[in-house]
């Protein structure tokens, strides 16, 4: 994915919904004029189009330039519903239909074609004032927003422009969420309680049920699947959303992987039954992987995209089972406790988020983004990783939004896991005490806006955060540069390296097993390197310095690094090896990392004890009892931390 920076105008996220970028399509010039004026009065940025084809062309050219589309139903050159379909599939933007005709059948048609809303003309100002809700809703539901990664120009980030856009989006989301959080002052966990974590096992059940009915048959429906799955706590809606994502995923598979399409698919995915908010996608991925290979990369789909991810079960030793906290789903682990156990849950969440990231990241560059994304396909998500990286431009943002990258998740999670402390992000550091993951939470809460924030409150939440803000995660990996922006966890202190970078760095590329087994041996996580390779397309995905990268050593594949198992090991504080491993992460070059001993860039493997814990992170202090810190969790924490600090 190229981060192309030429967006029309980055969205101002400082005062959402101010600056919401709206595209109005209407063949009636009078209405176009009126709507333009009305929207301007709402402080939105308006672009008008009299022809549907022009609008579509405009949208295709400047994918990230708009947040929402308002279109008339009756247009001479193209049916409004058709345009609606196109936009939904290609760009996945919320579309509002309008017409002077309010007949139920028409409105129904609009809904069926995917319109977020249907307004009747004459349209009042007050109706337009609230259209931003559709944008936010979409964010929330999107597992991965490819657009985020498409490199929006970030207005205020010094990192590469690629991420700018994403960052903007992420920030936007974050801001919005934050605002919502503040406004609602709702209990973060309350809204997210129902999240379902689609673990590998659960997904497998789902797939079995679907196959039993016959995926293409007419009979396949959420209720039937639910009945067949026989999971009491699962709701029909969960299954429905997961089914939708799964279908999307399958269609993507059939279609081949086009970066966008795949992405798009992900977005509205059928796959990943929404676990609770689309996180499932992530999780599934993660789980998929885990199950499949025990390979661990904690990310099901996302395997460290870097290179060929040979899904090797990296460090399977790491207790793959541990790694899959996600699979455990919903671990109600309470991230806040600084217990490593919590870490486990965050991981789950991470996975989730990663999942979303993955989806988002369907970058073509990866071979099979889809595969990556859907762990359940037991594919190695190699690509995912790449894609994610690509999308990372917004790493910065993604950081804040854990939901960002799926792929990143992999990496991230690994990183995160391994370096809870690494979380530069403030949240992470804060969470540190809780074994890192909990820290993540705080970050999210603040930065990712409500969603993330809420997520953070519990492991599931973190995952949710990932899910919701894939960009955040994506960015995490993509942008090492961004990471740099994140100051150290202590307080935006990590400047030198983005948390991700650090994480990446800390993960030695070499085989996981190596890492896991010989903690002290290879410190260098070539995660970054790998990532770099993979994400090269992205530009600097990980802004790791080449040396660092090299340091990362010759990891065979980023996968290794990212292998959550690996991280797992690392995270396992108390365990000897794992601890060390964890330290590795910590040892990410950047001093920002909590435990980093300023060994830049390459995180040499430093035994925990040697690590200089700058961060208030208690991670190191508190070995992950649960040792289930998935990489994704780490990533999340990383991201979160960043956010918190940012």
């Amino acid at each position, binding site marked *: 994915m190229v981060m192309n920076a030429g967006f029309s105008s980055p969205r101002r996220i400082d005062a959402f919904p101010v600056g919401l970028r709206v595209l109005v399509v209407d063949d009636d010039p009078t209405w176009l004029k009126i709507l333009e004026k009305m929207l301007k009065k709402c402080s939105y940025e308006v672009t008008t189009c009299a022809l549907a084809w022009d609008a579509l062309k405009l949208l295709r050219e400047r994918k990230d330039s708009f947040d929402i589309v308002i279109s008339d139903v009756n247009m001479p050159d193209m049916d409004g519903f058709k345009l609606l379909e196109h936009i939904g599939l290609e760009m996945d933007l919320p579309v509002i239909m309008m017409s002077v005709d309010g007949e139920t059948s028409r409105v129904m048609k609009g809904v069926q074609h995917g319109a977020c809303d249907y307004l009747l*003309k004459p349209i009042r100002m007050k109706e337009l004032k609230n259209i931003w809700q559709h944008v936010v809703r979409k964010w929330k539901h999107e597992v991965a927003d490819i657009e985020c990664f498409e490199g929006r120009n970030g207005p205020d980030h010094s990192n590469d422009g690629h991420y700018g856009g994403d960052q903007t989006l992420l920030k936007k989301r974050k801001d919005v969420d934050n605002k919502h959080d503040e406004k609602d002052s709702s209990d973060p966990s309350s809204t997210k309680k129902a999240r379902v974590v689609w673990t590998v096992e659960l997904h497998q059940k789902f797939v079995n049920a679907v196959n039993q009915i016959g995926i293409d048959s007419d009979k396949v429906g959420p209720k039937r699947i639910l009945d067949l799955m026989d999971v009491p706590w699962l709701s029909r809606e969960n299954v429905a959303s997961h089914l939708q994502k799964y279908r999307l995923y399958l269609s993507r598979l059939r279609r081949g992987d086009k970066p966008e399409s795949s992405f798009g698919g992900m977005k509205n995915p059928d796959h990943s039954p929404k676990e609770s908010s689309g996180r499932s996608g992530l999780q599934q991925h993660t789980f998929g992987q885990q199950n499949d290979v025990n390979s661990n990369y904690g990310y099901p789909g996302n395997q460290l995209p870097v290179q060929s991810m040979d899904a090797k079960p990296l460090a399977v030793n790491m207790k793959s089972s541990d790694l899959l906290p996600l699979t455990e789903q919903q671990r109600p682990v309470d991230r806040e406790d600084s217990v490593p156990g919590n870490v486990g849950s965050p991981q789950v969440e991470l996975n989730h988020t990663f999942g979303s990231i993955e989806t988002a990241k369907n970058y073509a560059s990866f071979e099979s983004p889809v595969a990556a994304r859907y762990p359940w396909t037991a594919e190695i998500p190699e690509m995912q990783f790449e894609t994610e990286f690509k999308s990372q431009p917004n790493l910065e943002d993604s950081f804040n939004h854990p939901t960002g990258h799926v792929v990143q998740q992999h990496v991230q999670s690994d990183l995160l896991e391994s370096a809870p402390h690494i979380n530069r992000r403030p949240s992470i550091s804060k969470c540190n005490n809780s074994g890192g993951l909990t820290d993540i939470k705080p970050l999210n809460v603040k930065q990712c806006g409500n969603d993330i924030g809420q997520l953070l409150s519990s492991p599931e939440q973190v995952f949710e955060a990932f899910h919701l803000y894939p960009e955040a995660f994506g960015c995490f990996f993509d942008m090492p540069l961004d990471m740099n922006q994140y100051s150290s966890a202590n307080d935006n202190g990590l400047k030198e390296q983005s948390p991700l970078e650090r994480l990446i760095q800390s993960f030695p590329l070499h085989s996981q097993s190596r890492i896991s087994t010989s903690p002290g041996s290879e410190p260098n996580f070539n995660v970054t390197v790998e990532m770099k390779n993979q994400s090269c397309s992205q530009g600097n995905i990980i802004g790791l310095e080449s040396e660092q990268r090299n340091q990362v050593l010759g990891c065979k594949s980023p996968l290794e690094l990212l292998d959550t198992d690996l991280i797992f090991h690392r995270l396992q504080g108390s365990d000897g090896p794992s601890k060390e491993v964890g330290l590795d992460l910590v040892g990410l070059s950047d001093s920002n990392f909590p435990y980093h001993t300023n060994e830049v860039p390459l995180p040499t493997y430093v035994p925990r004890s040697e690590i200089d814990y700058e961060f208030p992170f208690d991670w190191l202090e508190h070995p992950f009892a649960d040792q289930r810190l998935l990489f994704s969790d780490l990533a999340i924490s990383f991201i979160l931390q960043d956010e918190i600090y940012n």
Partner: protein
Amino acid sequence: MRCLFKLGHVRRWGFNSASSRALPVLGSPSLNWASEYKFYHLHAEILIALRDGDRKKEYLGYLDEQFIQLEELQDDDSPNFVEEVVNSYYSDSARLIRIIDQALEKRAIDFDKLDDYMHQFKGSCSSVGAKRVVDECSQFREYCAARSAEGCIKTFEIIKHEHALLRKKLEAYFQLVNSAGTM
């Protein structure tokens, strides 16, 4: 005629928007009482009693709340917004009227197409709040559905008449507004 005293109008006439006074300030040297009165009169005439919007048959005015909305949209950035919109409406609607006329003149009337055109026209009229015209358009569409050529033709005549009438009123209205200027 509460609609008359919407903020926008009050503002235009230099009234203190916070003031509860609805009538022109009589006796004020800067006000052209006569023209203000004319304005109000015309405005009242062309606007409907919004509160009684439900009672379709009882509306007196030619315009509805949409027109008020347009006036409220007018601001310093676009000081002639309402007039611009109305002009845009009239040029676009003239085109549609021509098309519908042509379609009605055909021996074999294509009602679906006619309905389509009328749908567009109706949408256009709703943009300025031309209530009477819009209502007639709905009537026209019903005749289209009933495949009644006669009904369509007759209704369309009424539409054209209302359309022209409103245009005259609006022209007079804008003239007043522009001449009276801002106080």
